[in-house]
Structure formats: C-alpha cells, structure tokens
C-alpha cells in the first residue's frame, strides 16, 4: 500500500459517518435532478422503472415510485482500504497535469440503504397522467412500502486511471472485480433486484462513479474555477466579438490572394516534390516564416554567447563531429548541428582572457528580453542583512545555512555552494595584484552598441513584504561581513571612468509599434540574409552547414535580425501564435 490512510478516521467511525452523509446527499440530489434520474435509480437497482419513466412522457410531474428520499442508513468500512500507486506521469501541459494508475482494493465493506416505494402504481400513473385522460380511476389509497437493502461483504478490486486536471479529477475504472452479498427486506423482490443490480454494475463503474467523483472533486477546485469564471466574465465585458472560425464566402474575399497562391504552390510542391516554381513562393516569402532545414543558419546568427565566441569553440565542434562519426550511420543527423546549441561561454575565452564583460551582459540582456514577456522585469530581490555583533562570528559558517534556505524556500540545499562566494574576497586577497588583460575591460566601440537598455525592475509590494519578514528572520541567524578595500588599489585597477551613469532608458520594445516589416524588408543586408537563408540548395551550403560561422560582432551589428521569426508581439499578423521557432 503506497498511500497511507489515516487509520484514526476508520477507528473512530468518523469516516463512515462522513461517507454516509456524502452518499445520502449525492443520491438525493441527483434523484431530484430531472436530467439524470437514471443515475440514481440504476444505482439503487431500480433501473427498469426509470426507463419506463422516460417512456411515459409525463411532462407535468415526474413519474416516480419513490415516495421518500433515499437514506443511507449505515456504512461500515471495518478495514482500511488500500490504494497503491502503480505508475505516474507528469506533463506540464495546461490541460492535464498528473496522470496516474492506481490499484484500489477494499474488503468487508457494508452499506445499508433505506427508501420508501409507492406500490400503488395506479396512483402514481394517474397522478402524472394529463387531466383530460379518461376514465378516472379510483385509486386514492397510497400503499407505501419501506424497503431496506443491505450490501454486505463488499469486496472491490480495481485498476483505475486517474487524471488530475485543472478542472477536477477524472477517474476511469479499468479492471473491476466486485463481489457482494445482497439482502433486501422484500424477499420477493430480492432475486429480481439482485439480477438487475449485477447487470447495472458495468454502468455504475463506467459512468456513474466517474461522474460522481468528478463533481465531488470540483468542489476542491471550485475556488479556482470560480476565479477563472470571473476572469472570463470580465473579458467578455469587453464585448469583443469572438473570432470567426467558419470560412464563408465573405471571409474568403478578405484573404490575400497572394498568400493563397503561395500556399497552394507550396502544397503542390510538397505533393510533387518539385521545387520549381517555389523559388519565389516558398513560405520563406511569407514574413517571419522559416523552413526547418534553414533553422541552423538562423540559429547561428542569433546573438548568443556560443555564436559570438564561435571561433573559440573549435574543440567542442570537432568533438561533436566525432560523436557523429562514431554513430556511424549513413542517416544524416541534421539536428545536432543546430538544435543542441545552448548558450555557453566557451571556456577558452576565459582562459585566454578574450571575453568582454559588457558584451556578455548585453547578450544575456537581449536573450532575457526576447524570452520573456515585455512587461516582465528581472527579479532583484533584496535581503537585509543585519550586523549582529562579534559574538556570532565564530559560528558564521554554520549560521549561514538557514539564511540561504530562506532565499529559496522550496529549493534544494545544494545552492549553498552558490552563495558563500561573496565572502571570499577578503582584504588580503584583494590587495594582491591580479593579472588582468587591459584589453579586457576596455569596451570597444561596436560592442557598446549592444549594451541594450536594461529592463526596469519593479518590485512586487507583496513580495517585498515577504522578503522583509524573511530577512528579519534571517538577520537573527546570519552574518555576512561587508567588503572593504584599501582605497589605494582601486585607482590602479579600474579602467572605467567611474563618474558617468547614463540615465535609465526604457525597454526597447516600447508601446508604440514599429512598422518593423517595412523597416526589415527594405534593408539590403536583410534581403541578403533572406536569400542565403531560404535558398540553401542553390548555394550548395546545405551539405556542410557547420562551415559558415558568423564573425564576431556581425551578429550584434544586425540588431534588427532578432525580429525575424521571433515572438515580436507588435507584429501585424499572428497575434496569438508565435511564429516558429521562438516562443515566449
């Protein structure tokens, strides 16, 4: 049993009581609900009557032989049921979150149900027959029979699939093994009801239980659902007409004939495998559209650390080629050349001191801007560190731990390794001369261009409250001493003029929309790129894609390139669907 049940609940009868209440509630609510009378009655073994009901067509009143509600008078689970988890799958997709396979088994359960049945069917019939029906029957006397049904020694074993979704819990029973003893207070009816019960069990597990469980689980998700509903209503308040899906003739007139022509050419070339005629009309001429086979070329021009310092990456490339050779298949692996191209700073740039700090931060800023929403600001948490006297100092290493956990509440503690670094630069170390390549820190002019405007940071007021609380907590335990350097060194090693701070610039993608398409397609460099991107076969470069490597700086000069195919939300077309390959 992988799930542990609270045995207390089973011992003190509280579980039985709860279940009894819930069952009574569920049975009565659905029996009063005219849309699903079948559900209740089938469970009760009265399926046949309900079928008659739908046939009788009594519109004014429901044909119902039940005189009273259904009462679940006794429930008993003497032993704890068992729930075992057999498989688990998590997908981060919004629709279904967790999928699990479970085995349920329970033994010796008991269930007692009481209700009252009107045995005078004539009365029931005449009550719901229309008033003009003749002859009038004399059937005034009601004959109510109380019925008690006891299900005992219920033994259930089932394999279930459970889906936890946004809206609730879905469950399906696959391999049901059910056995019980049935006892009815009306001995005459016992065999009939029992037979019908057994027949309807399939229906119970296929439809009734899943729907009951789903509706029960919705109460768990209710708050969230209500919130969603509210949001939905709000968005409806805009009274914007929903986009039409059906293409009518009038719609077709609005579609651009040119695009339709391109699409049809594309389709025909896909079908015939002929490339003639597609040279001008391939999807590449549709703005922002890129063919997958050209993706690597596109990727190699994206401003990323790997591309910018591409010339330092030789060894790794050759290693990749080796891997490819060792795979030894004749099947080309085009994926390797472009897909696995993470944003890494080649280690050689560090060793040779060829890196440039503003370039790195510039590239990282731009990747951040591109990968996040326009309004998202970088998180810059602030932790107040209080100095707490000398007493704590000897314990500093140990006291460090709680503070770090504080910063990342739900993360695992290996992060501890990350944060002690601020303490390392101490006075002796800083005063030792460090070998710095003077070229490193001097920004050369083309590179300063890419130091793109820094996103503004807005601190969430709620968050900062939490932080304050956290930091107060932390302050009691933690101690980090400030750095203090002798002033004399600083002038020796600092190359930057320290007195200019440029005014803060807003994020580049400002609200006013740029007509970027025009700007893009009129530039000659871009059209060069486009021809090289979209007609690889003509240039024969498809065969050795790794050969072309952008020279340093070129990527960054062509700043506008980052618009092509990226999720630039200000574009005229494709409001919701981001064009490939970059999504938000």
């Amino acid at each position, binding site marked *: 049993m992988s799930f542990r049940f609270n045995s207390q609940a089973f011992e003190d009868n509280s579980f039985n009581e709860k279940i009894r209440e819930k069952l009574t509630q569920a049975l009565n609510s659905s029996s009063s609900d005219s849309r699903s009378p079948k559900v209740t009655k089938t469970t009760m073994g009265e399926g046949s009557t309900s079928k008659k009901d739908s046939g009788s067509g009594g519109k004014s009143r429901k044909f119902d032989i039940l005189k009273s509600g259904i009462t679940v008078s006794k429930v008993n689970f003497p032993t704890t049921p068992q729930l075992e988890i057999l498989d688990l799958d998590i997908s981060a997709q919004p629709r279904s979150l967790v999928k699990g396979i479970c085995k349920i088994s329970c033994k010796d359960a008991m269930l007692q149900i009481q209700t009252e049945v009107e045995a005078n069917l004539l009365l029931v019939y005449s009550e719901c027959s229309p008033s003009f029906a003749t002859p009038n029957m004399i059937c005034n006397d009601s004959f109510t029979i109380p019925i008690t049904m006891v299900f005992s020694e219920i033994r259930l074993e089932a394999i279930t699939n459970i889906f936890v979704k946004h809206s609730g819990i879905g469950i399906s029973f696959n391999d049901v093994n059910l056995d019980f003893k049935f006892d009815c207070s009306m001995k005459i009816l016992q065999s009939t009801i029992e037979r019908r019960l057994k027949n309807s069990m399939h229906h119970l597990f296929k439809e009734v239980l899943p729907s009951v469980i789903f509706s029960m689980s919705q109460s768990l998700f209710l708050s969230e659902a209500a919130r969603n509903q509210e949001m939905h209503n709000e968005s409806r308040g805009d009274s914007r007409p929903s986009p039409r899906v059906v293409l009518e003739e009038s719609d077709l007139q609005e579609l651009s004939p040119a695009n339709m022509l391109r699409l049809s050419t594309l389709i025909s070339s896909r079908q015939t495998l002929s490339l003639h005629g597609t040279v001008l009309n391939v999807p590449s001429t549709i703005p922002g559209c890129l063919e997958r086979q050209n993706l690597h070329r596109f990727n190699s021009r994206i401003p990323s650390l790997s591309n910018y310092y591409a010339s330092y990456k030789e060894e790794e490339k050759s290693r990749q080629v080796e891997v490819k050779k060792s795979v030894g298949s004749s099947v080309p692996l085009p994926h390797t050349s472009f897909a696995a191209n993470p944003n890494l700073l080649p280690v050689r740039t560090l060793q040779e001191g060829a890196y440039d700090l503003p370039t790195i931060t510039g590239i990282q800023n731009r990747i951040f801007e591109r990968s996040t929403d326009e309004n998202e600001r970088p998180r*810059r948490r602030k932790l107040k*560190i209080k100095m707490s006297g000398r007493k704590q100092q000897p314990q500093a290493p140990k006291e460090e731990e709680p503070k770090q956990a504080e910063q990342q509440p739900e993360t695992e503690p290996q992060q501890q390794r990350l944060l002690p670094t601020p303490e390392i630069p101490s006075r002796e170390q800083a005063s030792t001369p460090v070998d710095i390549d003077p070229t490193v820190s001097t920004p050369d002019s083309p590179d300063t261009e890419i130091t793109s405007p820094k996103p503004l940071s807005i601190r969430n007021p709620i968050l900062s409250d939490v932080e304050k609380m956290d930091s107060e907590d932390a302050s009691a335990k933690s101690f980090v001493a400030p750095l203090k350097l002798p002033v004399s060194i600083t002038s020796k090693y600092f190359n930057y003029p320290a007195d200019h701070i440029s005014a803060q610039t807003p994020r580049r993608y400002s609200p006013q929309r740029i007509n970027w398409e025009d700007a893009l397609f009129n530039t000659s460099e871009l059209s060069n790129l486009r021809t090289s991107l979209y007609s690889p076969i003509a240039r024969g470069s498809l065969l050795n894609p790794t050969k072309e490597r952008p020279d340093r700086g070129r990527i960054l000069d062509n700043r506008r390139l980052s618009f092509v195919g990226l999720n630039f939300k200000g574009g005229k077309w494709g409001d919701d669907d981001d064009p490939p390959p970059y999504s938000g």
Partner: protein
Amino acid sequence: MSFDIHWSNLESDTRLNESIKNHLNTYLESISLPSYVCNLRILDFSLGKTAPNITLREISDPLDELYRGLNEDEPDSITPSPNDIQFLVEVEYKGDLLVTLAADLVLNYPSDNFMTLPVKLTISNVGLHSLCLVAHLSKHLLISFLCDISDVDLDGNESLLDPKGHVLSPRRSLERISIIRNMKIETEIGQQHSGEGSVLRSVGRLEQFLLEIFKDLLRKEVSWPSWIELDFNDDNEEDLQQSKDTPTTANTGTTTTN
C-alpha cells in the same frame, strides 16, 4: 583556481553535516506549507568530498547597470564611489553533494489528513560551471550569475536520439543560462506498509519536471539581469563599524592565495 579550499577540513568535521541538516530542518519546520504538503524534512545531508573550484577572473569597477538597477527603487540614489568594486568569479562544482528530502502529500478529503502519500527525493550529482558577478557598492552586495561556461564534463552527455531530450524537443527557445547543468533527482513514491504494496521508484517524468522547475527558479532569481541584493545598511552603525574592523572570516575555512 584562485582559491585553495581546504575541503578536507570540512570532511573531517563529522558533526558538520549533521548540524547543517538540523539547521535546515529547523528552518523547514518554520515555513508554512500549502495544505497538501506536510512533514517536509531532510533525511540525509552530506557536503561530499569534492570542493568547489573558484577562480577569480577580474576585478573592476561595477557595471553601470548595477547602479541603474539600484537607483530605480531607492529614494536616495547611489553614486559610484572609489570604494565600489566588482569581482568576476568563475565557479565550478562537480561534486558529490547529497541531499535526501522527504515530504508527505496530503489529501484533505473527505476529512482532514485523510490520505497521505509519502514522497522521497534524493538529489545528487550536482554540476555547475558558471561565471558569477559579485559587486559591492556602498553597503550593497550584489550577486548574479552571468552565464554558463562550456564544460566537456557537463555538456553533451545527452542522448541525441532521446525523443524527450533537449535535442529533439520542439519549440524550445534559447535558454539564457541554466546554472545547474547537471543534477540527478531520484524519486521514490509511496511506502511499503508491513511488507505490502509497491513503491514507485525513479519516475522519469517527475524527475525531469522537478529539475525544470528548479532551473527556472534559479534562472528567474539569480541569473543576469536578475540578481540577489544583500543590503548591509544598518541602523546600528556601531555594529557595522565593528565588523569592518575584523577581517572577514571566509566561509568554510577558505584561505585565499592567488
């Protein structure tokens, strides 16, 4: 490597792991968890036998962006002063840190605490190799991870043909940084009860899911252009003065040579 770290000193201290574990557990007890999680605790903690590798790459004036970032939400603006300094540090760790976490997932239906599912996570094999920026400007200490550094041990151990892997997965945009490049999470779901029942081990999708969440969190919080700011501004100036006088005792017995 700029810093000699006497990791063996840590290893020899047998009580250290235990006390770290206790501290973390005390902390975990103090935080408020959502209703469906309880009993979050650390079962096992070990710092491992491998020391991190820390290399100082550059000392310079802090970047302008840092000032700009700080001045955005500070009423009193911070101006560059000759005391401000910035370190560019290469951090590398491929060690055998081991943490075992356990928690119970709770179903509070139909009654409170009705059903629990024990979950155990073992985290090991952590690998990171990044460039880190540490800046100190007028009593503010800023820490930010700039970028990852290519590393033969950490890159490219992904199977090329794994359909769920990075290589073939569709619609994946370029990630800025991942900080934790390598991390093994072993899951264990369920608990045997008097020899009955099965325990679900190594749920691949779950492990992947957790790892992604963790990476995302780090990326959001501490990687450039985000940073963590430690504010040393204190009302009690006396204390501050005192601690300035005493040289910083570096964490974990680190001595600094160059």
